[in-house]
């Protein structure tokens, strides 16, 4: 021990450096998206100045909001090395329920309706979670199944009907289209949700345990993490947020039928991956995923503004996804190498 009396100073310094290195990498990831976003808006704005109008920027935020909320939920699930493919279908169920309730019982308090939507989503998430944790069925299979089941239920329930905006109270539609101090209400809601979920994942035991489960499931069990309970909770949250997304979908678009949110699951997962959430779990943040959603939405909008063919819009999203994965792989390898070198130097010292 005496030989190490002088060690703490050196340890502190290199510890500081190691932390800075890893933190830089994560910041690089999120700053990278912000940079790409800024560049994209700037370039599109130069080519088509109308893109920079307040209305247009407002639309960007609005379009990304629902996806950002869903991506936050999806991050909770992906971090545990699972996936939730059913979010689009859950959104449809919740959206139709919201619309139908408000149309049939115009007097219902709006918070009650929103809580119902969240509750319905949570119930769907509970089913997913139970099948994954207690049924020991891979999440990919479970949620692929419930993707079809929930969508089928939505078709059965709507029976070809559609809820229209004129049947919905204005106070409700305002949530989707109104603003507070010039900022769209929907974007504010998304921001609050993302920050709450993001902080929970970052600064609370339950959140850190989700990372532990995704990073090494066996080690998590040995560390006394109640994995089943945590994974179940992640699915419930993902479902609940999809339910919230459904209510907001109705408020934003006014028109809801059984096809609402079709294909959203892929956009949401793509957002998370572009935002640096590792599909094999253990890495990523809710903020990254939300920024990913914003970036994907902005690309789509800018390509539309620039009158690019619809095919190329899809291809651009695909290319972005591959680029993000390549970037993660590259940075990951560099980080591994840097950490290995540091260990080697320390061993030699």
């Amino acid at each position, binding site marked *: 021990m005496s030989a190490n009396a002088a060690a703490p100073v050196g340890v502190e310094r290199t510890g500081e450096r190691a*932390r800075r290195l890893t933190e830089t990498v994560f910041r690089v990831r999120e700053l990278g998206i912000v940079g790409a976003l800024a560049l994209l808006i700037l370039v599109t704005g130069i080519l088509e100045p109308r893109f920079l109008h307040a209305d247009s920027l407002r639309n960007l935020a609005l379009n990304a909001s629902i996806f950002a909320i869903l991506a936050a939920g999806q991050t909770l699930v992906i971090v545990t090395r699972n996936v939730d493919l059913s979010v689009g279908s859950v959104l449809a169920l919740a959206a139709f329920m919201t619309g139908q309730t408000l149309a049939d019982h115009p007097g219902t308090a709006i918070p009650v309706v929103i809580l119902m939507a969240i509750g319905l989503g949570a119930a769907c998430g509970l089913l997913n979670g139970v099948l994954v944790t207690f049924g020991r069925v891979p999440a990919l299979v479970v949620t692929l199944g419930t993707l079809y089941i929930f969508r089928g239920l939505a078709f059965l329930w709507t029976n070809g009907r559609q809820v229209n905006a004129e049947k919905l109270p204005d106070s409700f539609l305002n949530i989707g289209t109104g603003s507070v101090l010039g900022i769209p209400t929907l974007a504010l809601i998304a921001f609050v949700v993302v920050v709450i979920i993001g902080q929970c994942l970052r600064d609370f035991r339950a959140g850190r345990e989700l990372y532990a489960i995704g990073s090494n499931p066996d080690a998590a069990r040995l560390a006394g993490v109640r994995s089943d309970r945590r994974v179940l909770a992640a699915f419930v949250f993902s479902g609940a947020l999809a339910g919230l997304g459904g209510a907001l979908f109705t408020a934003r678009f006014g028109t809801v039928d059984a096809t609402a949110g079709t294909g959203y699951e892929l956009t949401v997962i793509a957002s998370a991956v572009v935002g640096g959430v590792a599909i094999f779990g253990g890495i990523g943040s809710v903020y990254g995923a939300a920024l990913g959603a914003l970036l994907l939405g902005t690309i789509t909008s800018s390509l539309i503004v620039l009158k690019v063919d619809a095919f190329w819009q899809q291809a651009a999203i695909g290319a972005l996804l591959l680029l993000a994965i390549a970037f993660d792989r590259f940075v990951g390898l560099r980080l591994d190498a840097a950490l290995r070198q540091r260990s080697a130097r320390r061993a030699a010292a």
Partner: protein
Amino acid sequence: MSDRPVLSLVRATKSYGAVHALRDGNIELRAGEVRALVGENGAGKSTLVKLLGGVIRLDDGEMLVEGEAVDFHSPTAARDAGIAVIYQEPTLFPDLSVAENVVMGRHPLGALRRIDRREMDREVQGLLDRLGVRLDAERPVRGLSIADQQIVEIAKALSFDARVLIMDEPTAALSGPEVERLFGVVRTLQQRGAAVLFISHRLEEVFAIGDTITVMRDGAVVHDALTADITSDEVVRRMVGRDLGALFPKEEAAIGAPTLQVHRLTREGVFTDVSFEVRSGEIVALAGLVGAGRSEVARAIFGIDRPDGGHVEVAGARLPKGRPTAAMKAGIAFVPEDRRQQGLVMDLSVARNATITRLRALSRLGLIRGVAERRLAEEWAERLQLRFHRLDDAVGTLSGGNQQKVVLAKWLATEPRVMIVDEPTRGIDVGTKAEVHRLLSELAGRGVAVLMISSELPEVLGMADRVLVMHEGRISGELSRADADEERVMRAATGQPMDAAA
């Protein structure tokens, strides 16, 4: 040492179906004692460790902590009782920081039950400093050596004031200096009154660190002694229940022409200017510390990694770079260090694993013939005295020693001219070790050139005709069988100048 054991197991039994993994487990651990536990693979050591660690539960018998009967229904229960298990392969979270790995589930909390990161880092750094190791609490675990990962595990054990520390083959993947450091840490723990159960296949370590020794065989504790009162021969005899022939049955073989020639092989930053040859019938050991670049040289020879410079010849024919299939065709066989990840497909059957190198020969019109596959697998299973239930069982169900035999079988089936084996006996029991050694010796006798990488000096000295020593990516010494001794090899491995005898 106090009189009352901290932890004891009395007449413990545990069965898996018809297999009695533990028939009569009796062990006592006292504060301030380091007890070594030895036994062949399958003797029941792992079962005993899992029982103490709360991973599995007793069928019958008793477990006592401080004299009180306990029944651990989960690893957490064992942990709460002050028992920490450090497994051979550390179970850590690579994506999280060292500090977070230590406190997972028990993070220090601040206001609103938020995690207090500053306090967490400070606490864990304090633990690491008290262990006398230089390791940053805030760096991620990814990229740490196995030795450092074990230190993280030990810090974890300390963080909840473990009274009993169970270490399951902690030294299997460590180099000499790393083992020394670990022993230092173990002695520190011992002085602070912890009871340590230390499991190892390396008898010299058992005698170096253990106060007492427990020998297991066939699911039962068969002997219990002070290390001072027993010799290593006696321990081996009690482990195998019979007198073991020489552990290193090296036979003289006729040494012929150079079969494998390595010319100035270089891979930037990994190894530099490595040249040597292995003759037919010769066993050449590649010794050195972990991280000296030995495995990397082997990987480059076999074509897994592409060298930046130099080339390899087999029987005079130059191999193309970075092409394992070409190396195989030229007659090189490669038994990698990590048999779980690189040597075997754990979920495939024993038969499929053993014959996977011969798929082309076993197939007709592109389809594998099941009968031929079985026949080949059966033949090798018999020749290597493989112990298994059925050839269709997943290879992951076999013990470590038997898994290694399957890896050997799969390469022997190709009738190689050059056999490269990387740590061929790591983590396998004494009996199987001797069988592997005999097999290598026989191969050499049949004219195969054998290149053996090993971190176990007795193995190197016992088996090799010639010893090459690597230090920091370069060959730092070459010793003939007659000249090689522990001191000379270690001098070369640590980069000290060779004496005149070399």
